[in-house]
């Protein structure tokens, strides 16, 4: 486990993921399953970004759906009302989201404690209210249609092409995240989570690193929101709503805090779940809450880290007095 990250070779998990993503289309029976897989990939991208902030750095955001929604609506409004090319609209949404995240994070992250959770909660609610009320641009609660995605003149059509795009992006984001974690920046982020005072004493500017990872995760959410909007073709303010933020947090926690592959698993399980729970219509949020509680009680580290720990046989820690035969 430990030395997987140290070598110069490619992370084996990344190879497995690439293999799974390559084989999956051969196994998916029809367009419906492709659709689910594509949604899982887009959710996983957001959740990986959120996990960098939550799981690795220990900062909680309860408003990430707001950033997702900003990206989605920036793409929708700029392409359909102003005729921008999708890539330009996506970039504009990402830049705007990044700036907003920066503006929020700079003052908030100087403070100690769970101020970020409260501030993002507020920001998420504000974003969804603005989307609901600015009906001349967003269509308000009725939502708005979004044109298809064309990348540099090539239209993405059909579930196979969308799947290829989603899979490639997921693979890329996973690779970025794994690289980041296994780098000086990634270690600094984890050290902030482990001990803020120790981080500062070794020279880590903790506020700056928290701001950077927050902005990064917000931009990732925004880009995923933009692409999702083009894929789904119709967006509503619920995308930016509080419940969606809670869904994203649940995906991080269930899959596993501080686990990139846990993020993907969490996104997969909780995207599949509503499909299976259609019988519980209206009660999904209760089921989500129950899952979150059960995970906290039985698997507090989340699925992937708990399973990884179980599979790796650990000898019990020797008693304190017997340990030190180190010699120096």
């Amino acid at each position, binding site marked *: 486990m*430990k*030395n997987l990250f*140290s070598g*110069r070779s490619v992370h084996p998990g990344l190879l497995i993921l690439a293999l799974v993503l390559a084989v999956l289309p051969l196994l998916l029976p029809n367009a419906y399953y492709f659709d689910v897989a594509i949604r899982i990939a887009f959710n996983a991208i957001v959740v990986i970004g959120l996990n960098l902030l939550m799981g690795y750095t220990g900062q909680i955001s309860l408003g990430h759906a707001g950033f997702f929604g900003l990206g989605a609506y920036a793409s929708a409004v700029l392409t359909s009302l102003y005729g921008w090319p999708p890539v330009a609209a996506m970039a504009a949404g990402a830049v705007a989201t990044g700036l907003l995240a920066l503006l929020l994070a700079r003052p908030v992250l100087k403070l100690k404690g769970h101020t970020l959770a409260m501030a993002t909660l507020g920001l998420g609610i504000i974003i969804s209210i603005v989307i609901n009320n600015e009906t001349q641009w967003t269509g308000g609660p009725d939502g708005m249609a979004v044109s298809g995605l064309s990348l540099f003149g090539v239209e993405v059509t059909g579930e196979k092409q969308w799947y290829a795009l989603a899979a490639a992006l997921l693979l890329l984001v996973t690779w*970025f*995240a794994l*690289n*980041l974690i*296994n*780098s*000086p*920046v*990634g*270690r*600094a982020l*984890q*050290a902030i*989570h*482990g*001990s803020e*005072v*120790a*981080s*500062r*004493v*070794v*020279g*880590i*500017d*903790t506020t700056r690193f928290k701001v*950077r990872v927050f902005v*990064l995760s917000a931009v990732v959410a925004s880009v995923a929101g933009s692409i999702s909007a083009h894929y789904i073709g119709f967006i509503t303010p619920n995308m930016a709503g509080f419940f969606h933020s809670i869904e994203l947090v649940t995906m991080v926690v269930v899959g596993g805090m*501080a686990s990139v592959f846990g993020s993907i698993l969490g996104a997969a399980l909780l995207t599949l779940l509503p499909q299976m729970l259609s019988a519980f219509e209206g009660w999904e949020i209760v089921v989500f809450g129950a899952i979150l509680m059960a995970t906290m009680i039985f698997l507090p580290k989340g699925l992937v880290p708990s399973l990884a720990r179980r599979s790796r046989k*650990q000898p019990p*820690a*020797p008693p*304190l*007095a017997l*340990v*030190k035969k*180190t*010699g*120096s």
Partner: protein
Amino acid sequence: MLRIENLSKHFGGVKAVQDVSFTIREGSIHSVIGPNGAGKTTLFNLITGVYAPTTGRIVLGNDDVGGLSPDALARRGMSRTFQNLQVCMNMTAIDNVMVGAHLSLNQSLFAAMLRLPSIRRADAACRDEAARLMEFVGVGQHVDAHASEMSYGALKRLEIARALAARPRVLLLDEPAAGLNHTETGEIETLIRKVAQSGVTVVLVEHDMKLVMNLSDHILVLDYGKKLAEGTAAEVRANPDVVAAYLGAAA
């Protein structure tokens, strides 16, 4: 190299440190002792920037560094360990040590995400150096361990390795022998001497008098936040005030 001038720190009405002055010479081992609550850890927190002084100056080299943030002080060669361990239990042992070298490594987010060859090379060198430091402090057998799997005594040494990874000019050790048994304390003594011989100035807060007397070139005695006495081990031991306030009570 480190000069403390008339330093005071008040928490509301509590005067944790009052008008303390002393000088630490480069390359020496300097100890701060005193009964519980004498203000030793507060003094450490002032010197390392965790607290800002109420009044007084802290001069490192030629600059007044009082009130600078811990990361700014780290940039000037200040490093420390903690009385209550501050090892990152969410990380592997060697990653903890590598965090100590933070300031000497590339901090670019984009270079990190792309894992550029320069990052890879610097990380590999940093990992080798961290493994060497773990060996140096005597936790070499834990090089593949997760921090949460290590014993208390090993974690204390791991913290010292992390502090050394920053290549500090001054290393402040806050009770390095606390919670250790007799043998372990002896090993820590050897280690601190090795660190000092490698050219790092050591400032020590410690309750274990044998350790302090064995190691220190110079001792500062605090009591109720004030300087009670200062001098070599022999001078401090012979000082009647110190005997009354501290050594006498302990014996």
